[in-house]
């Protein structure tokens, strides 16, 4: 089934990043990043902490500002124009390590907030969409609870549903499972796999190598703000080329 999913990649370009650079003060966090993502591609980004992988995907929806180079999402150039930023953000969904659900709103309200206020969807319709996606992540019965009443795994699935309610064409995942207890990781990964099988374009920062093997059609290894190696998962895991990749893989797979 994973093989079947991999066939859906089209030639259409979803994200195009060229010679992108970013500095925090004088610290060069991202160096000459070149990355083209086709529609339907599922990319896993891994690397040691501090390698700039989170910063990279946060640049894609302008949570971080880049200083040099260009980022184009769905044909929209990420410039300083607020309208472009708004357009890109409403097309790109994002899931965070710490879920970042809004604790003062119910699950349903969390999901309908952005469709109502950003997409100007009527409330009733927004709720229908929200329930559809909550069913998809298998927690429709929790719709009236507050985030604090849910387990971590459930919260992360709500966060995914919340992003999906905006009907994004691209999903970004920033270490979605690293704040979860081991027994909850699977339920979140299952949701993500299902999403991948439907052909969603995904960029995923994660250390879940099983997930990478199963659904990714490209794995990118970053270190010190640079893309060091990228390859198809089989080749990447079985035959890493760069010594840095080899060291990293031996450390995370070795135990």
């Amino acid at each position, binding site marked *: 089934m994973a093989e079947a999913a991999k066939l859906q990649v089209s030639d259409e370009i979803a994200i195009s990043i060229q010679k992108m650079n970013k500095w925090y003060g004088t610290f060069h966090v991202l160096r000459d990043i070149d990355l083209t993502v086709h529609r339907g591609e599922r990319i896993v980004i891994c690397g040691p902490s501090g390698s700039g992988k989170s910063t990279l995907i946060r640049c894609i929806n302008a949570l971080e500002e880049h200083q040099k180079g260009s980022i184009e999402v769905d044909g929209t150039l990420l410039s300083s124009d607020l309208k472009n930023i*708004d357009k890109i953000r409403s097309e*790109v969904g994002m899931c965070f390590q710490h879920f970042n659900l809004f604790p003062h709103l119910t699950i349903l309200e969390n999901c309908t907030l952005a469709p109502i206020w950003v997409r100007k969807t009527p409330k009733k319709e927004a709720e229908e969409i929200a329930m559809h996606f909550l069913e998809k992540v298998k927690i429709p019965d929790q719709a009236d609870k507050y985030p604090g009443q849910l387990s971590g795994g459930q919260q992360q699935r709500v966060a995914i549903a919340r992003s999906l309610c905006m009907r994004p064409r691209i999903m970004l995942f920033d270490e979605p499972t690293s704040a979860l207890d081991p027994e909850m990781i699977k339920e979140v990964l299952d949701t993500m796999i299902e999403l991948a099988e439907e052909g969603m374009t995904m960029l995923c920062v994660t250390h879940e190598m099983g997930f990478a093997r199963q659904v990714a059609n490209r794995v990118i290894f970053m270190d010190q703000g640079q893309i060091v190696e990228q390859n198809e998962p089989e080749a990447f895991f079985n035959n890493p080329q760069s010594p840095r990749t080899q060291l990293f893989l031996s450390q995370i797979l070795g135990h």
Partner: protein
Amino acid sequence: MSDTHEHSVAFVRTTEIPQQTAPSSAAGPVKWMRDNLFATWPNALLTVAAFYVIYLVLSATLPWILGGLWTTSSLSECREVLQGRSAACFSVLTERWNQLLFGFKYPAELYWRPTLAFLLMFIALAPVLFFDLPRKLLIITGLFPFAAYWLIWGGTVWIPVFALVGFVAGYFVYARFVAQNFAAGFFGGIVAAAVVWYIGGFAVAALAPATPFLEAVPSRDLGGFMLNMMLGLTCVSLSIPLGIALALGRQSSMPLIKWICVIFIEFIRGVPLITLLFVASVMLSYFFPPDQTVDLFVRVVIMITLFSAAYIAEVIRGGLAALPKGQYEAADSLGLDYAQSMRLIILPQALKISIPGIVNIAVGLFKDTTLVSVISMFDMVGMIRGPILASTDWNGVYWELFGFAALLFFVVCYGISQYSQWLERRLATDHR
């Protein structure tokens, strides 16, 4: 127990050990006394000393309070009845009751009006203080300021009516446009309200009857505890929106706006309230248009509002800082703009965290309303120090009067701070 295998380490319990009552040294009043009053020798001494202090205080005050007189008409009459016995002369409270509450100029036959406003206040405050009450009650809260204004000041009913209509019109325009664009809704609302008020200005002049239904009372006639309540309530409610704006301004990434707010807040927090009251009484009128005279009451309200807004802004800033950065990022990543993310995500949470702090500011402010007596307004303390103690009947009745004032403030402030603690506990366990 003995039915287990004696020489094996393996053990399975087959009989239950019944619960036994604790020995009297580990529970009950004796244990409590030993733990809490006489744990060690120094501790026991401390207990004895504390009892002695309590005895001293009570033996001095209790006979004085219990033997107090309530029905004489002047201090000299009181002293005659007491014949050298040391006891309180509470009759000053009964005789000057209305003056203490309403001041000495408010027409006596109109006392029912502020009293009614006072009772309405509880209904208006209830839905604000207790979240569980139906939200529809907030309509009463919204109507209360206009009703209270009309009751206390009297005069033509059209002034509060048009003020209210202005707010309602502004709100409808805001609600109509806010979904498209916050700025359009906000400024549209302000313009709509301003238009209504401008028209209302002419309409009131035309509609006002020669003899209004409620007789008008000028604001210099307000006084007593009523003045403290009015100043406290008005200034706190006005300063919350201003405080929110200042807090958001101080968080702004725009240096000019940030520095305007920082300078304002630090300036206000750096000077005592009394200097701001001096500004209200002797300086502020110079800054109004030359042909206009603005009531001292309004000037004082302006200055106290600015004062408490600066403090409330700092409390709210703390609430904003306590929110995790992820909340801002999640709102951004969903495509909400600044106004939307503040209004829908950030402020509801930050304000909730800030409520106990805001209540503390409110208590402090309410206590500080007594300072207006320094600029010769006759609030409760002003009434006592001025007209009552200066009168020939009651010259020298310090303890009863100041004790009463202290008690009244204590009841209100202690009540509010108990509410704040209750709320804090509730918010801590709240799943929201």
